[in-house]
């Protein structure tokens, strides 16, 4: 009990040998707990995990059965969420056969939930860096507009990893290609119209009637109906302010929820976004005016947005380094964003916007015990995780990268 490393070692041994073994209780003692809730930061606080769930938070909690982790001087956060990532769908970008993030067959209804590779090397790598859940989306579907549907996966790496929430949101892109953006709006209109007609024709179709679904499959039209009927969010990848304004109007007409992704010029319409309660997913480090759609890109965008009351989610486009959202958040803070808001942008904001907040995204009683214990400020580039816990199980902290490191430290004579 005095030798924490020993305890970690034993627990890791147990959990990796039998991932489905009875979950042991864990008591984290004296951590600085960044809750991601209205409770803010709790100093010298204990967190008790029972059966994979956070069961109590407070001072001087005791437990006979629990493994005890002495976290004095260290910081505990909720496990980080990667919003809009290809984690589990891509191993190597330039090797097409290692990619499951694209299709030529489906568009709006392209669900990737069956393609998640829990044995991907990207998963332990990002997990040890703090990512415990990934909201996994396809990159592109048939056509230029809709990419498809995203699902949520935990990063424990169990061989039979299934999505914990399936087809929760749709992603689409706008701008940046040679077709007019006006044409994209027209296509959106047509697609929504078609899906509404499809809804009216369901009975007729069941009776064997013919419905011309045009270029969309019935699966695609069902997915679009899901946006309107179930208010699943539509993630709109765009950077230009005018696109966002037009899209806000479109969303009102069709009664759908939208989230902007990329959104380099979102700061220009921050008040409007706040008024309409529309969240944005941004990479605070990407301040490059990389196209004429993103001329307004700036380093303090996240700060301007949060100051205006917009819900900001921080995510990195690169699946391999999804965890660099932490560095993104740190840079946002360096450029004016409130530090606590930045932590929320990596955790609870993501969970709330995607409707996952009942189970993940913050340190609250009753939530899944997805937690990260850090050896320092979680937004600092020199900080590492000491322990990553998913569903109350302490995860292995090994990665292929660390194995290679250790092998070559020996080869080079530095061990």
């Amino acid at each position: 009990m005095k030798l924490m490393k020993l305890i970690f070692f034993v627990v890791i041994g147990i959990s990796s040998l039998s991932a489905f073994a009875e979950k042991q209780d864990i008591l984290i003692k004296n951590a600085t707990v960044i809750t991601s809730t209205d409770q803010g930061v709790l100093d010298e606080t204990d967190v008790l995990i029972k059966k994979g769930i956070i069961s109590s938070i407070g001072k001087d909690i005791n437990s006979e059965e629990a493994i005890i982790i002495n976290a004095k001087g260290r910081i505990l956060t909720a496990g980080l969420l990667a919003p809009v990532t290809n984690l589990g769908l891509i191993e190597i970008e330039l090797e097409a056969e290692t990619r499951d993030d694209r299709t030529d067959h489906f568009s709006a209804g392209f669900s990737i939930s069956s393609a998640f590779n829990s044995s991907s090397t990207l998963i332990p790598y990002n997990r040890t860096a703090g990512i415990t859940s990934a909201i996994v989306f396809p990159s592109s579907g048939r056509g230029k507009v809709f990419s498809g549907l995203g699902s949520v996966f935990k990063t424990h790496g169990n061989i039979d990893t299934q999505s914990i929430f399936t087809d929760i949101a749709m992603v689409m892109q706008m701008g940046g290609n040679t077709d007019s953006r006006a044409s994209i709006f027209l296509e959106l209109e047509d697609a929504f119209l078609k899906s509404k007609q499809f809804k009216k024709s369901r009975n007729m179709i069941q009776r064997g009637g013919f419905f011309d679904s045009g270029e969309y499959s019935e699966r695609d039209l069902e997915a679009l109906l899901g946006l309107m009927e179930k208010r699943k969010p539509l993630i709109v990848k765009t950077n230009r302010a005018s696109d966002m304004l037009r899209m806000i109007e479109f969303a009102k007409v069709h009664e759908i929820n939208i989230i902007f992704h990329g959104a380099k010029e979102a700061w220009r319409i921050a008040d409007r976004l706040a008024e309409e309660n529309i969240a944005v997913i941004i990479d605070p480090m990407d301040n490059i005016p990389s196209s004429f759609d993103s001329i307004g890109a700036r380093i303090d965008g996240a700060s301007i947005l949060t100051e205006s009351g917009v819900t900001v989610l921080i995510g990195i486009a690169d699946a391999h380094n999804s965890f660099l959202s932490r560095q993104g958040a740190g840079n946002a803070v360096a450029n004016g964003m409130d530090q606590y808001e930045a932590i929320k942008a990596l955790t609870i904001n993501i969970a709330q916007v995607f409707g996952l907040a009942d189970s993940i995204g913050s340190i609250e009683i009753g939530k899944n015990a997805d937690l990260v214990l850090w050896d320092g400020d979680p937004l600092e580039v020199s900080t590492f995780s000491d322990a990553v816990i998913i569903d109350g199980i302490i995860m292995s902290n090994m990665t292929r990268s660390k194995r290679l490191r250790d092998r070559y430290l020996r080869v080079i004579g530095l061990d």
Partner: protein
Amino acid sequence: MILNPKYSSLVIALVLILFGTISAQSKINEKVLINYAYESTYKPEESSKIIITNANILTGNGDSILDASILMHKNKIVAVGKDLDQSDATVIDAEGKWVTPGIIDIHSHMGVYPAPSLRSNSDGNEATSPTTPHVWAEHSVWTQDPQYTLALKGGITSFHVLVGSANLIGGRGVTLKNVRSRTVQGMKFPNAPYSLKMACGENPKRVYGGRDSEPSTRMGNVAGYRKAWIEAQEYQRSWLEYANTPDEDIEVSDIPSRDIGLETMVGVLEGDILVQMHCYRGEEMAVMLDVAKEFDYKITTFHHAIEAYKVADILAQNSVCAAMWADWWGFKHEAFDMVWENTAIVDQAENKTGCAIVHSDSAVGIQRLNQEAAKALAAGQKAGLDLNRERAIQWITSNPAKALGIDDQVGSIEPGKMADVVIWSDDPFSVYSRAERVFIDGHLKFNIDDPDSFQRTDFDIGIIDPEGDRL
């Protein structure tokens, strides 16, 4: 007329021969031949006396000097230490903040792949033939790339612009100072040697193999380099032969034709042009060292050296630097074996004689090269290696300066060097740290508190709002 002493002795010798002996050839354009027609025109105004006091200095030479001052005058660092004479100097109180040499990025495509990334400005890869030593990156540089300003705000004072990696032998790279000018010559780092960009691995074979042409394999790559060097050696020989021919035996038809590509390659063989080689995999680096041995040239740096840690001892033994990212990986198979400790292992190899460089290759990364170095430092320390800030700052200052052949002029804070200095708001190895003041040649080029302190590129003016500036 000032000749760059580093410039090819061979070519200069040829000029003397041509002019000294053959009157018929006196009309050969001397300026074209030795390329100083393309010389830097950057001449900073003489800077006034400025003293930065109460500074914690990471010198870039591997040590730190706490609570000291830096005196700058006439574009140079004049003195570093305690109790310096402040008379006539403008005093800038660093208030105990960290001060470093100006940050140097050895791998940039700013200007040749500017923002916005328009097809019309995509000028970094002459991907029409696998061997294009005749092209020069500087002839593609757009002087109004808004990325320069973003990099300046990250403390970048010099950067090396390379051609892309589509080709086995891609062309000449150029070192620029991060100063605004209407001309690329006005940005060129005075008297910096040129580089020759070469590329290993997947890129050339993908670009040309995809067109059913050579190279389509790694062995095709190596055959391609060797063929090109044989040609360069022959070219070198033909000029030497010509130079050694007695005057009376020379006929006009004996004068070899100029080949600007082979001139560049001969520049490498002569040791005047530095090879900067894109190479990810360990065994490919080792093969390239053999190619260099066969043709008796030197590889200065392997860039994007994801697997440098696998051959860190070999690199140190051969005095070759490795320029690396902190954590990019996986976008192609040769980038699959990334380790966070790469930079640290290269640094520590062979009794700490390795030459490690952190580079960006990215307009996002170049704005926070200090953070990239911080990640690499933290990973090395976590792995138990004997590293500190003093050593790690060299990865983005004196080591790239050395690998660019400009370490006699920049890369450290010491008397006689160009006054390229950054004052940081916080520990430069922290994510929260920002470059507060950036001096280039003794002039304050960026002050975080003064939006008028930096010169915007043309691109940034009136583009989002006709009344205002983009940033």
